[in-house]
Protein backbone atom coordinates (compact mmCIF):
# COMPACT_ATOMS: atom_id res chain seq x y z
CA UNK A 1 0.00 0.00 0.00
CA UNK A 2 2.43 2.63 1.15
CA UNK A 3 5.80 3.05 -0.44
CA UNK A 4 8.45 1.68 1.82
CA UNK A 5 11.90 3.05 1.45
CA UNK A 6 15.30 1.82 2.41
CA UNK A 7 16.84 5.17 1.68
CA UNK A 8 17.72 7.08 4.76
CA UNK A 9 16.80 10.40 6.27
CA UNK A 10 14.53 11.50 3.51
CA UNK A 11 11.36 12.13 5.43
CA UNK A 12 11.71 15.88 5.63
CA UNK A 13 12.60 16.47 1.99
CA UNK A 14 10.23 18.74 0.10
CA UNK A 15 8.73 17.02 -2.94
CA UNK A 16 10.99 16.96 -5.96
CA UNK A 17 13.75 19.00 -4.42
CA UNK A 18 17.03 18.08 -2.86
CA UNK A 19 18.47 19.80 0.15
CA UNK A 20 22.17 20.04 -0.47
CA UNK A 21 24.44 19.63 2.48
CA UNK A 22 21.72 18.49 4.81
CA UNK A 23 21.47 14.80 4.04
CA UNK A 24 24.01 12.49 5.54
CA UNK A 25 26.79 11.54 3.14
CA UNK A 26 26.38 8.13 1.63
CA UNK A 27 22.67 8.07 2.26
CA UNK A 28 22.05 11.02 -0.01
CA UNK A 29 20.05 10.00 -3.06
CA UNK A 30 20.66 11.19 -6.59
CA UNK A 31 18.34 14.00 -7.80
CA UNK A 32 16.30 11.56 -9.89
CA UNK A 33 15.77 9.34 -6.89
CA UNK A 34 14.82 12.41 -4.89
CA UNK A 35 12.14 13.23 -7.37
CA UNK A 36 10.90 9.67 -7.24
CA UNK A 37 10.94 9.96 -3.48
CA UNK A 38 8.83 13.12 -3.72
CA UNK A 39 6.32 11.36 -5.91
CA UNK A 40 6.20 8.47 -3.48
CA UNK A 41 5.59 10.83 -0.60
CA UNK A 42 2.82 12.53 -2.53
CA UNK A 43 1.25 9.17 -3.28
CA UNK A 44 1.48 8.20 0.39
CA UNK A 45 -0.03 11.52 1.41
CA UNK A 46 -3.04 11.07 -0.82
CA UNK A 47 -3.51 7.45 0.22
CA UNK A 48 -3.72 8.52 3.84
CA UNK A 49 -6.04 11.35 2.87
CA UNK A 50 -8.38 9.17 0.80
CA UNK A 51 -11.26 9.07 3.33
CA UNK A 52 -10.96 12.79 3.93
CA UNK A 53 -10.83 13.57 0.18
CA UNK A 54 -13.91 11.46 -0.51
CA UNK A 55 -15.63 13.14 2.42
CA UNK A 56 -14.85 16.67 1.39
CA UNK A 57 -15.97 16.05 -2.20
CA UNK A 58 -19.10 14.07 -1.35
CA UNK A 59 -20.23 15.79 1.83
CA UNK A 60 -18.83 19.32 1.62
CA UNK A 61 -17.75 20.71 -1.76
CA UNK A 62 -20.35 18.81 -3.78
CA UNK A 63 -23.23 19.83 -1.50
CA UNK A 64 -21.98 23.43 -1.53
CA UNK A 65 -22.27 23.55 -5.31
CA UNK A 66 -25.67 21.87 -5.23
CA UNK A 67 -27.01 24.24 -2.61
CA UNK A 68 -25.70 27.21 -4.57
CA UNK A 69 -27.59 25.91 -7.59
CA UNK A 70 -30.73 25.17 -5.58
CA UNK A 71 -30.73 28.70 -4.17
CA UNK A 72 -31.74 29.86 -7.66
CA UNK A 73 -34.46 27.27 -8.10
CA UNK A 74 -37.87 26.29 -6.88
CA UNK A 75 -37.54 22.76 -5.55
CA UNK A 76 -39.83 20.65 -3.40
CA UNK A 77 -37.84 17.40 -3.32
CA UNK A 78 -40.24 15.57 -5.67
CA UNK A 79 -40.50 17.58 -8.90
CA UNK A 80 -37.28 18.52 -10.62
CA UNK A 81 -35.79 21.90 -9.64
CA UNK A 82 -37.09 24.86 -11.65
CA UNK A 83 -34.69 27.76 -12.33
CA UNK A 84 -36.15 31.01 -11.06
CA UNK A 85 -33.08 33.24 -10.91
CA UNK A 86 -32.92 35.65 -7.98
CA UNK A 87 -36.56 35.23 -7.02
CA UNK A 88 -35.78 33.36 -3.77
CA UNK A 89 -33.59 36.20 -2.63
CA UNK A 90 -36.19 38.80 -3.60
CA UNK A 91 -38.78 36.81 -1.66
CA UNK A 92 -36.46 36.67 1.36
CA UNK A 93 -36.21 40.43 1.52
CA UNK A 94 -39.99 40.68 1.33
CA UNK A 95 -40.50 37.96 3.97
CA UNK A 96 -41.33 39.44 7.38
CA UNK A 97 -40.59 36.24 9.23
CA UNK A 98 -37.17 36.06 7.58
CA UNK A 99 -36.41 39.54 8.87
CA UNK A 100 -37.67 38.47 12.28
CA UNK A 101 -35.33 35.49 12.25
CA UNK A 102 -32.42 37.72 11.22
CA UNK A 103 -33.18 40.13 14.06
CA UNK A 104 -33.64 37.40 16.67
CA UNK A 105 -30.37 35.75 15.65
CA UNK A 106 -28.43 39.00 15.54
CA UNK A 107 -29.69 39.94 19.00
CA UNK A 108 -28.77 36.51 20.29
CA UNK A 109 -25.29 36.67 18.77
CA UNK A 110 -24.52 40.30 19.61
CA UNK A 111 -25.71 40.13 23.22
CA UNK A 112 -24.82 36.51 24.02
CA UNK A 113 -21.30 36.35 22.62
CA UNK A 114 -19.79 39.36 24.48
CA UNK A 115 -21.49 38.30 27.73
CA UNK A 116 -20.26 34.75 27.35
CA UNK A 117 -16.69 35.83 26.61
CA UNK A 118 -16.74 38.33 29.48
CA UNK A 119 -17.90 35.61 31.87
CA UNK A 120 -15.29 33.23 30.48
CA UNK A 121 -12.48 35.75 30.92
CA UNK A 122 -13.63 36.80 34.39
CA UNK A 123 -13.72 33.22 35.66
CA UNK A 124 -10.43 32.42 33.93
CA UNK A 125 -8.80 35.34 35.76
CA UNK A 126 -10.28 34.02 38.97
CA UNK A 127 -8.79 30.58 38.35
CA UNK A 128 -5.42 31.44 36.87
CA UNK A 129 -3.38 31.65 40.07
CA UNK A 130 -2.46 28.21 41.35
CA UNK A 131 -4.63 27.31 44.32
CA UNK A 132 -5.98 24.28 46.02
CA UNK A 133 -8.79 22.61 44.10
CA UNK A 134 -8.03 24.54 40.92
CA UNK A 135 -8.42 21.48 38.71
CA UNK A 136 -11.78 20.75 40.28
CA UNK A 137 -13.09 24.26 39.65
CA UNK A 138 -11.79 24.27 36.11
CA UNK A 139 -13.56 21.01 35.29
CA UNK A 140 -16.78 21.94 37.05
CA UNK A 141 -17.03 25.26 35.19
CA UNK A 142 -16.32 23.49 31.94
CA UNK A 143 -19.09 20.91 32.36
CA UNK A 144 -22.01 23.03 31.05
CA UNK A 145 -20.24 23.46 27.71
CA UNK A 146 -20.60 19.75 27.09
CA UNK A 147 -24.28 19.45 27.85
CA UNK A 148 -25.57 22.94 27.06
CA UNK A 149 -26.68 22.23 23.50
CA UNK A 150 -28.49 19.00 24.40
CA UNK A 151 -32.25 18.53 24.35
CA UNK A 152 -32.11 17.69 28.07
CA UNK A 153 -30.71 21.04 29.10
CA UNK A 154 -33.22 22.75 26.80
CA UNK A 155 -35.96 20.97 28.71
CA UNK A 156 -34.41 21.97 32.04
CA UNK A 157 -34.14 25.59 30.91
CA UNK A 158 -37.73 25.55 29.80
CA UNK A 159 -38.81 24.26 33.19
CA UNK A 160 -36.64 26.61 35.24
CA UNK A 161 -37.64 29.69 33.28
CA UNK A 162 -41.28 28.71 32.87
CA UNK A 163 -43.83 31.32 33.85
CA UNK A 164 -44.33 31.01 37.57
CA UNK A 165 -41.42 28.59 37.92
CA UNK A 166 -38.28 28.94 40.00
CA UNK A 167 -36.58 31.89 38.30
CA UNK A 168 -39.83 33.80 37.95
CA UNK A 169 -40.79 33.21 41.59
CA UNK A 170 -37.35 33.93 43.04
CA UNK A 171 -37.12 37.16 41.11
CA UNK A 172 -40.46 38.34 42.43
CA UNK A 173 -39.22 37.52 45.95
CA UNK A 174 -36.67 40.26 45.33
CA UNK A 175 -39.41 42.53 44.09
CA UNK A 176 -38.52 42.21 40.43
CA UNK A 177 -41.64 40.90 38.79
CA UNK A 178 -40.95 40.09 35.19
CA UNK A 179 -44.27 38.31 34.94
CA UNK A 180 -43.18 35.23 33.07
CA UNK A 181 -40.10 34.40 31.05
CA UNK A 182 -40.53 31.99 28.18
CA UNK A 183 -44.19 32.97 27.81
CA UNK A 184 -43.29 36.63 27.43
CA UNK A 185 -42.11 37.82 23.98
CA UNK A 186 -39.75 40.32 25.64
CA UNK A 187 -38.13 37.83 27.98
CA UNK A 188 -38.00 34.64 25.92
CA UNK A 189 -34.82 35.63 24.08
CA UNK A 190 -32.96 36.67 27.26
CA UNK A 191 -33.77 33.17 28.53
CA UNK A 192 -32.00 31.71 25.51
CA UNK A 193 -29.11 34.14 25.97
CA UNK A 194 -28.60 32.99 29.57
CA UNK A 195 -28.26 29.47 28.25
CA UNK A 196 -25.42 30.41 25.93
CA UNK A 197 -23.70 32.49 28.62
CA UNK A 198 -24.02 29.52 30.97
CA UNK A 199 -21.79 27.56 28.58
CA UNK A 200 -18.81 29.87 29.11
CA UNK A 201 -16.59 26.93 30.09
CA UNK A 202 -15.15 26.18 26.66
CA UNK A 203 -13.81 29.71 25.96
CA UNK A 204 -12.76 29.90 29.63
CA UNK A 205 -10.48 26.91 29.29
CA UNK A 206 -8.90 28.47 26.20
CA UNK A 207 -8.48 31.79 28.04
CA UNK A 208 -6.82 29.95 30.93
CA UNK A 209 -4.31 28.35 28.59
CA UNK A 210 -3.59 31.78 27.11
CA UNK A 211 -3.27 33.50 30.50
CA UNK A 212 -0.75 30.92 31.66
CA UNK A 213 1.55 31.89 28.81
CA UNK A 214 1.80 35.54 29.82
CA UNK A 215 5.30 35.94 31.30
CA UNK A 216 5.09 36.91 34.97
CA UNK A 217 8.11 39.23 34.62
CA UNK A 218 5.84 41.64 32.77
CA UNK A 219 3.52 41.90 35.77
CA UNK A 220 6.43 42.25 38.17
CA UNK A 221 7.95 45.04 36.12
CA UNK A 222 4.60 46.82 35.84
CA UNK A 223 3.99 46.51 39.55
CA UNK A 224 7.38 48.08 40.23
CA UNK A 225 6.39 50.94 37.97
CA UNK A 226 3.34 51.37 40.15
CA UNK A 227 0.72 50.10 37.73
CA UNK A 228 -2.53 49.18 39.46
CA UNK A 229 -4.60 46.09 38.93
CA UNK A 230 -6.81 47.54 36.21
CA UNK A 231 -3.84 49.11 34.44
CA UNK A 232 -1.98 45.79 34.45
CA UNK A 233 -5.05 44.05 33.04
CA UNK A 234 -5.48 46.61 30.27
CA UNK A 235 -1.86 47.08 29.31
CA UNK A 236 -0.49 43.58 29.80
CA UNK A 237 -3.16 40.91 30.08
CA UNK A 238 -5.47 42.06 27.31
CA UNK A 239 -2.78 42.61 24.63
CA UNK A 240 -0.98 39.40 25.58
CA UNK A 241 -4.10 37.25 25.29
CA UNK A 242 -5.52 39.09 22.28
CA UNK A 243 -4.75 36.18 19.88
CA UNK A 244 -6.71 33.87 22.17
CA UNK A 245 -9.47 36.44 22.49
CA UNK A 246 -9.60 36.69 18.72
CA UNK A 247 -9.82 32.91 18.37
CA UNK A 248 -12.59 32.65 20.99
CA UNK A 249 -14.53 35.52 19.48
CA UNK A 250 -14.37 34.03 15.99
CA UNK A 251 -15.37 30.57 17.15
CA UNK A 252 -18.21 31.73 19.39
CA UNK A 253 -19.65 34.07 16.76
CA UNK A 254 -19.72 31.38 14.09
CA UNK A 255 -21.13 28.92 16.56
CA UNK A 256 -23.85 31.28 17.82
CA UNK A 257 -25.11 32.11 14.35
CA UNK A 258 -26.02 28.43 13.99
CA UNK A 259 -27.99 28.06 17.23
CA UNK A 260 -30.68 25.45 16.80
CA UNK A 261 -31.45 22.78 19.39
CA UNK A 262 -31.77 24.95 22.49
CA UNK A 263 -33.92 27.52 20.70
CA UNK A 264 -36.22 24.82 19.34
CA UNK A 265 -36.63 23.08 22.67
CA UNK A 266 -37.15 26.26 24.68
CA UNK A 267 -39.64 27.56 22.11
CA UNK A 268 -41.50 24.25 22.30
CA UNK A 269 -41.84 22.38 19.08
CA UNK A 270 -45.58 21.78 19.16
CA UNK A 271 -47.77 24.38 17.50
CA UNK A 272 -45.86 27.22 19.08
CA UNK A 273 -42.65 26.98 17.03
CA UNK A 274 -40.66 30.15 17.17
CA UNK A 275 -41.76 30.94 20.69
CA UNK A 276 -44.20 33.67 21.77
CA UNK A 277 -44.63 36.16 18.93
CA UNK A 278 -41.78 34.45 17.07
CA UNK A 279 -39.40 35.88 19.66
CA UNK A 280 -37.31 32.69 19.52
CA UNK A 281 -37.45 32.25 15.76
CA UNK A 282 -33.72 31.79 15.25
CA UNK A 283 -32.32 31.63 11.75
CA UNK A 284 -31.48 27.92 11.88
CA UNK A 285 -34.99 26.99 12.89
CA UNK A 286 -36.68 29.12 10.23
CA UNK A 287 -34.41 27.55 7.63
CA UNK A 288 -35.35 24.09 8.87
CA UNK A 289 -39.02 25.00 8.85
CA UNK A 290 -38.92 26.30 5.28
CA UNK A 291 -36.78 23.46 3.96
CA UNK A 292 -38.02 20.39 5.75
CA UNK A 293 -41.53 21.26 6.90
CA UNK A 294 -42.72 23.36 3.98
CA UNK A 295 -40.42 21.54 1.54
CA UNK A 296 -39.20 24.81 0.04
CA UNK A 297 -35.70 23.47 -0.53
CA UNK A 298 -34.64 26.22 -2.93
CA UNK A 299 -35.82 28.92 -0.55
CA UNK A 300 -33.99 27.25 2.36
CA UNK A 301 -30.84 26.96 0.24
CA UNK A 302 -31.04 30.68 -0.49
CA UNK A 303 -31.39 31.26 3.27
CA UNK A 304 -28.34 29.09 3.91
CA UNK A 305 -26.26 31.14 1.50
CA UNK A 306 -27.38 34.38 3.09
CA UNK A 307 -26.24 32.95 6.42
CA UNK A 308 -22.96 31.91 4.87
CA UNK A 309 -22.56 35.42 3.47
CA UNK A 310 -23.31 36.92 6.87
CA UNK A 311 -20.81 34.69 8.65
CA UNK A 312 -18.25 35.31 5.91
CA UNK A 313 -18.73 39.05 6.30
CA UNK A 314 -18.30 38.94 10.06
CA UNK A 315 -15.21 36.74 9.72
CA UNK A 316 -13.73 39.06 7.11
CA UNK A 317 -14.34 42.14 9.26
CA UNK A 318 -12.75 40.39 12.25
CA UNK A 319 -9.70 39.42 10.24
CA UNK A 320 -9.44 42.96 8.83
CA UNK A 321 -9.60 44.63 12.23
CA UNK A 322 -7.29 42.08 13.78
CA UNK A 323 -4.18 44.13 12.86
CA UNK A 324 -5.47 46.89 15.06
CA UNK A 325 -5.99 44.95 18.25
CA UNK A 326 -4.53 41.46 18.03
CA UNK A 327 -0.87 41.34 19.01
CA UNK A 328 1.15 38.38 17.91
CA UNK A 329 4.52 37.87 19.52
CA UNK A 330 6.33 37.95 16.18
CA UNK A 331 5.15 41.53 15.59
CA UNK A 332 6.71 42.71 18.81
CA UNK A 333 10.16 41.52 17.89
Amino acid sequence: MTPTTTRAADGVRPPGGTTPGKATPGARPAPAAGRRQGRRETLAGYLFLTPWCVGILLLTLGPMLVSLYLAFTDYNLFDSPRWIGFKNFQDLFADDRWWTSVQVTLKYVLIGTPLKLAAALAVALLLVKPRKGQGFYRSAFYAPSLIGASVSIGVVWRAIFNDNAIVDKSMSLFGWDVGGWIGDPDWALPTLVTLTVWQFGAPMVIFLAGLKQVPSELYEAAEMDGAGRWRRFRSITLPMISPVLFFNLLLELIHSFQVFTSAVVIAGSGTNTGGPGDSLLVYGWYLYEQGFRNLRMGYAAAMAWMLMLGIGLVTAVLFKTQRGWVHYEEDAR
Partner: protein
Amino acid sequence: MSGFVAAVGRWRVRSVIWHVGALAVLAVILYPVVWVIGGSFKPGDQIVGSLQLLPTDPITDNYRRLSDGIADVPISTFFTNSLLLAVGSVIGVLFSCSLAAYAFARIRFAGRNALFTLMISTLLLPFQVLIIPQYILFQKLDLINTYVPLLLGKYLAADAFFVFLMVQFMRGLPRELDEAARLDGCGHLRIYWNIVLPLCRPALITSAIFTFIWSWNDFIGPLLYLNEPDKYTVSMGLKLFIDQDSVADYGGMVAMSMVALLPVLLFFLAFQRYLVEGAATSGLKG
Protein backbone atom coordinates in the same frame (compact mmCIF):
# COMPACT_ATOMS: atom_id res chain seq x y z
CA MET B 1 7.24 37.24 64.15
CA SER B 2 3.92 38.97 64.61
CA GLY B 3 4.33 40.39 61.11
CA PHE B 4 4.72 36.89 59.78
CA VAL B 5 1.61 35.72 61.64
CA ALA B 6 -0.34 38.66 60.29
CA ALA B 7 0.85 37.89 56.77
CA VAL B 8 -0.18 34.26 57.06
CA GLY B 9 -3.49 35.40 58.50
CA ARG B 10 -4.07 37.78 55.62
CA TRP B 11 -3.17 35.07 53.13
CA ARG B 12 -5.61 32.70 54.80
CA VAL B 13 -8.44 35.20 54.83
CA ARG B 14 -7.86 35.95 51.16
CA SER B 15 -7.80 32.30 50.32
CA VAL B 16 -11.04 31.68 52.21
CA ILE B 17 -12.70 34.62 50.46
CA TRP B 18 -11.51 33.28 47.13
CA HIS B 19 -12.93 29.84 47.77
CA VAL B 20 -16.25 31.19 49.04
CA GLY B 21 -16.54 33.32 45.91
CA ALA B 22 -15.62 30.49 43.58
CA LEU B 23 -18.04 28.11 45.27
CA ALA B 24 -20.83 30.68 45.05
CA VAL B 25 -20.32 31.05 41.31
CA LEU B 26 -20.14 27.29 41.03
CA ALA B 27 -23.43 26.87 42.88
CA VAL B 28 -25.19 29.10 40.36
CA ILE B 29 -23.53 27.30 37.45
CA LEU B 30 -24.39 23.83 38.64
CA TYR B 31 -27.89 24.72 39.83
CA PRO B 32 -29.65 23.41 36.68
CA VAL B 33 -27.82 20.09 36.92
CA VAL B 34 -28.78 19.64 40.58
CA TRP B 35 -32.30 20.75 39.70
CA VAL B 36 -32.75 18.02 37.10
CA ILE B 37 -31.37 15.36 39.43
CA GLY B 38 -33.65 16.51 42.25
CA GLY B 39 -36.64 16.99 39.98
CA SER B 40 -36.47 13.49 38.60
CA PHE B 41 -37.22 12.16 42.10
CA LYS B 42 -40.16 14.50 42.77
CA PRO B 43 -43.83 13.92 41.99
CA GLY B 44 -44.81 15.64 38.74
CA ASP B 45 -46.86 18.45 40.28
CA GLN B 46 -43.96 19.60 42.48
CA ILE B 47 -41.38 19.95 39.72
CA VAL B 48 -42.20 23.24 38.07
CA GLY B 49 -43.17 26.00 40.45
CA SER B 50 -41.61 24.55 43.57
CA LEU B 51 -38.72 26.51 44.98
CA GLN B 52 -37.40 23.46 46.72
CA LEU B 53 -34.35 22.08 44.97
CA LEU B 54 -34.30 18.57 46.40
CA PRO B 55 -37.34 16.38 47.00
CA THR B 56 -38.65 15.98 50.55
CA ASP B 57 -39.67 12.35 49.94
CA PRO B 58 -37.72 11.07 46.98
CA ILE B 59 -39.81 8.83 44.74
CA THR B 60 -38.76 6.61 41.87
CA ASP B 61 -42.14 6.59 40.11
CA ASN B 62 -40.86 8.78 37.29
CA TYR B 63 -38.18 6.29 36.38
CA ARG B 64 -40.52 3.36 36.83
CA ARG B 65 -42.98 4.96 34.42
CA LEU B 66 -40.18 5.50 31.92
CA SER B 67 -39.41 1.80 31.89
CA ASP B 68 -42.88 1.26 30.40
CA GLY B 69 -41.56 3.12 27.37
CA ILE B 70 -42.59 6.13 25.32
CA ALA B 71 -44.96 5.85 22.36
CA ASP B 72 -44.90 2.04 22.69
CA VAL B 73 -41.11 1.99 22.38
CA PRO B 74 -39.19 0.71 25.40
CA ILE B 75 -36.64 3.18 26.63
CA SER B 76 -33.88 0.60 26.27
CA THR B 77 -34.38 0.84 22.49
CA PHE B 78 -33.53 4.55 22.48
CA PHE B 79 -30.55 3.81 24.67
CA THR B 80 -29.27 1.01 22.46
CA ASN B 81 -29.70 3.14 19.34
CA SER B 82 -27.83 6.08 20.85
CA LEU B 83 -25.09 3.81 22.10
CA LEU B 84 -24.74 2.12 18.72
CA LEU B 85 -24.46 5.46 16.96
CA ALA B 86 -22.03 6.88 19.50
CA VAL B 87 -19.72 3.87 19.42
CA GLY B 88 -19.94 3.68 15.63
CA SER B 89 -19.05 7.39 15.46
CA VAL B 90 -16.08 6.98 17.77
CA ILE B 91 -14.61 4.17 15.67
CA GLY B 92 -15.11 6.16 12.50
CA VAL B 93 -13.61 9.39 13.82
CA LEU B 94 -10.56 7.69 15.33
CA PHE B 95 -9.86 5.84 12.12
CA SER B 96 -10.48 8.48 9.49
CA CYS B 97 -9.31 11.59 11.34
CA SER B 98 -6.04 10.04 12.50
CA LEU B 99 -5.23 8.94 8.94
CA ALA B 100 -5.86 12.45 7.63
CA ALA B 101 -3.96 14.01 10.53
CA TYR B 102 -0.95 11.77 9.91
CA ALA B 103 -0.85 12.88 6.28
CA PHE B 104 -1.06 16.57 7.24
CA ALA B 105 1.42 16.34 10.10
CA ARG B 106 4.02 13.81 8.97
CA ILE B 107 4.05 13.46 5.19
CA ARG B 108 5.40 16.13 2.86
CA PHE B 109 3.40 15.97 -0.32
CA ALA B 110 2.46 18.31 -3.12
CA GLY B 111 -0.63 20.35 -2.31
CA ARG B 112 -0.48 19.69 1.41
CA ASN B 113 -0.72 23.30 2.51
CA ALA B 114 -3.63 24.08 0.22
CA LEU B 115 -5.55 21.03 1.41
CA PHE B 116 -4.78 21.82 5.03
CA THR B 117 -6.18 25.32 4.56
CA LEU B 118 -9.25 23.81 2.93
CA MET B 119 -9.66 21.45 5.88
CA ILE B 120 -9.38 24.28 8.42
CA SER B 121 -11.81 26.46 6.49
CA THR B 122 -14.50 23.79 6.77
CA LEU B 123 -14.48 24.63 10.48
CA LEU B 124 -16.00 27.97 9.58
CA LEU B 125 -18.67 26.57 7.29
CA PRO B 126 -22.21 26.73 8.69
CA PHE B 127 -23.82 23.30 8.60
CA GLN B 128 -27.02 24.82 7.22
CA VAL B 129 -25.36 25.21 3.82
CA LEU B 130 -24.81 21.47 3.66
CA ILE B 131 -27.89 19.92 5.21
CA ILE B 132 -30.26 20.48 2.31
CA PRO B 133 -28.09 18.93 -0.45
CA GLN B 134 -26.93 16.20 1.93
CA TYR B 135 -30.53 15.36 2.72
CA ILE B 136 -31.38 15.24 -0.97
CA LEU B 137 -28.37 12.98 -1.60
CA PHE B 138 -29.34 10.51 1.10
CA GLN B 139 -32.97 10.63 0.03
CA LYS B 140 -32.01 9.78 -3.57
CA LEU B 141 -29.88 6.92 -2.27
CA ASP B 142 -32.88 5.70 -0.27
CA LEU B 143 -30.98 5.99 3.01
CA ILE B 144 -33.51 8.01 4.99
CA ASN B 145 -34.44 6.31 8.24
CA THR B 146 -31.12 4.46 8.33
CA TYR B 147 -28.04 5.36 10.35
CA VAL B 148 -25.85 5.82 7.27
CA PRO B 149 -26.40 9.62 7.02
CA LEU B 150 -25.53 9.96 10.70
CA LEU B 151 -22.36 7.87 10.46
CA LEU B 152 -20.92 8.38 6.98
CA GLY B 153 -19.27 11.71 7.80
CA LYS B 154 -17.49 10.16 10.77
CA TYR B 155 -15.83 7.59 8.52
CA LEU B 156 -14.84 10.25 6.00
CA ALA B 157 -13.06 12.59 8.44
CA ALA B 158 -15.70 15.29 8.04
CA ASP B 159 -15.10 16.56 11.60
CA ALA B 160 -12.27 18.99 10.94
CA PHE B 161 -12.01 19.77 14.63
CA PHE B 162 -10.64 16.32 15.40
CA VAL B 163 -8.30 16.29 12.42
CA PHE B 164 -6.96 19.63 13.64
CA LEU B 165 -6.63 18.39 17.22
CA MET B 166 -4.66 15.34 16.11
CA VAL B 167 -2.48 17.33 13.70
CA GLN B 168 -1.55 19.66 16.56
CA PHE B 169 -0.61 16.69 18.69
CA MET B 170 1.30 14.83 16.00
CA ARG B 171 3.33 17.91 15.15
CA GLY B 172 4.63 17.84 18.67
CA LEU B 173 6.16 14.39 18.29
CA PRO B 174 9.89 14.38 17.52
CA ARG B 175 10.73 13.88 13.86
CA GLU B 176 13.72 11.72 14.75
CA LEU B 177 11.27 8.92 15.54
CA ASP B 178 10.11 8.75 11.93
CA GLU B 179 13.62 9.02 10.62
CA ALA B 180 14.88 6.22 12.82
CA ALA B 181 11.96 4.06 11.77
CA ARG B 182 12.67 4.80 8.12
CA LEU B 183 16.28 3.73 8.58
CA ASP B 184 14.90 0.46 9.85
CA GLY B 185 12.90 0.18 6.67
CA CYS B 186 9.45 1.15 7.92
CA GLY B 187 6.95 2.68 5.52
CA HIS B 188 4.37 5.30 6.43
CA LEU B 189 1.74 2.74 7.27
CA ARG B 190 3.95 1.13 9.88
CA ILE B 191 5.19 4.45 11.26
CA TYR B 192 1.56 5.55 11.55
CA TRP B 193 0.37 2.37 13.19
CA ASN B 194 3.32 1.36 15.34
CA ILE B 195 4.85 4.69 16.32
CA VAL B 196 2.59 7.69 15.86
CA LEU B 197 -0.76 6.22 16.92
CA PRO B 198 0.46 4.79 20.24
CA LEU B 199 2.13 8.09 21.08
CA CYS B 200 -1.05 9.98 20.21
CA ARG B 201 -3.13 8.22 22.80
CA PRO B 202 -4.08 11.36 24.73
CA ALA B 203 -5.32 13.06 21.54
CA LEU B 204 -7.19 9.91 20.51
CA ILE B 205 -8.85 9.56 23.90
CA THR B 206 -9.89 13.22 23.83
CA SER B 207 -11.35 12.85 20.34
CA ALA B 208 -13.12 9.63 21.30
CA ILE B 209 -14.83 11.18 24.31
CA PHE B 210 -15.82 14.34 22.48
CA THR B 211 -17.21 12.27 19.61
CA PHE B 212 -19.18 10.08 21.97
CA ILE B 213 -20.69 13.03 23.81
CA TRP B 214 -21.49 15.05 20.69
CA SER B 215 -23.04 12.05 19.00
CA TRP B 216 -25.05 11.27 22.12
CA ASN B 217 -26.31 14.86 22.35
CA ASP B 218 -26.92 15.25 18.62
CA PHE B 219 -30.40 16.40 17.80
CA ILE B 220 -30.54 17.82 14.30
CA GLY B 221 -29.09 14.70 12.65
CA PRO B 222 -31.66 12.25 14.06
CA LEU B 223 -34.38 14.88 13.60
CA LEU B 224 -33.60 15.07 9.87
CA TYR B 225 -32.93 11.46 9.07
CA LEU B 226 -34.92 9.26 11.45
CA ASN B 227 -38.67 8.98 11.23
CA GLU B 228 -39.64 5.76 13.00
CA PRO B 229 -39.70 5.82 16.81
CA ASP B 230 -37.98 2.45 17.09
CA LYS B 231 -34.95 3.93 15.32
CA TYR B 232 -34.94 7.03 17.55
CA THR B 233 -32.06 8.06 19.77
CA VAL B 234 -32.39 9.21 23.39
CA SER B 235 -32.57 12.87 22.27
CA MET B 236 -35.42 12.00 19.93
CA GLY B 237 -37.15 9.99 22.66
CA LEU B 238 -37.04 13.12 24.76
CA LYS B 239 -38.47 15.07 21.86
CA LEU B 240 -41.51 12.77 21.90
CA PHE B 241 -42.20 14.17 25.37
CA ILE B 242 -41.86 17.83 24.47
CA ASP B 243 -43.95 17.40 21.33
CA GLN B 244 -47.04 16.89 23.44
CA ASP B 245 -47.84 20.57 23.60
CA SER B 246 -49.35 20.60 27.04
CA VAL B 247 -46.97 18.50 29.03
CA ALA B 248 -49.00 16.22 31.21
CA ASP B 249 -46.17 14.09 32.50
CA TYR B 250 -43.57 16.49 33.85
CA GLY B 251 -42.07 13.80 36.06
CA GLY B 252 -41.45 11.47 33.16
CA MET B 253 -39.96 14.26 31.09
CA VAL B 254 -37.48 15.30 33.76
CA ALA B 255 -36.56 11.66 34.42
CA MET B 256 -35.99 11.19 30.71
CA SER B 257 -33.80 14.32 30.63
CA MET B 258 -31.80 12.82 33.46
CA VAL B 259 -31.44 9.51 31.62
CA ALA B 260 -30.23 11.40 28.54
CA LEU B 261 -27.68 13.36 30.57
CA LEU B 262 -26.39 10.50 32.67
CA PRO B 263 -23.86 8.91 30.27
CA VAL B 264 -22.47 12.34 29.40
CA LEU B 265 -22.08 13.25 33.07
CA LEU B 266 -20.42 9.92 33.84
CA PHE B 267 -18.05 10.28 30.91
CA PHE B 268 -17.27 13.77 32.06
CA LEU B 269 -16.51 12.66 35.62
CA ALA B 270 -14.26 9.88 34.38
CA PHE B 271 -12.35 11.80 31.71
CA GLN B 272 -12.60 15.48 32.63
CA ARG B 273 -8.84 15.95 32.50
CA TYR B 274 -8.69 14.91 28.84
CA LEU B 275 -11.73 16.97 27.93
CA VAL B 276 -10.50 20.16 29.53
CA GLU B 277 -6.99 19.77 28.13
CA GLY B 278 -8.31 18.86 24.69
CA ALA B 279 -10.48 21.96 24.63
CA ALA B 280 -7.56 24.10 25.77
CA THR B 281 -5.08 22.88 23.15
CA SER B 282 -7.56 23.54 20.36
CA GLY B 283 -7.19 27.25 21.03
CA LEU B 284 -3.42 27.48 21.17
CA LYS B 285 -0.57 27.18 18.77
CA GLY B 286 -3.07 27.66 15.91
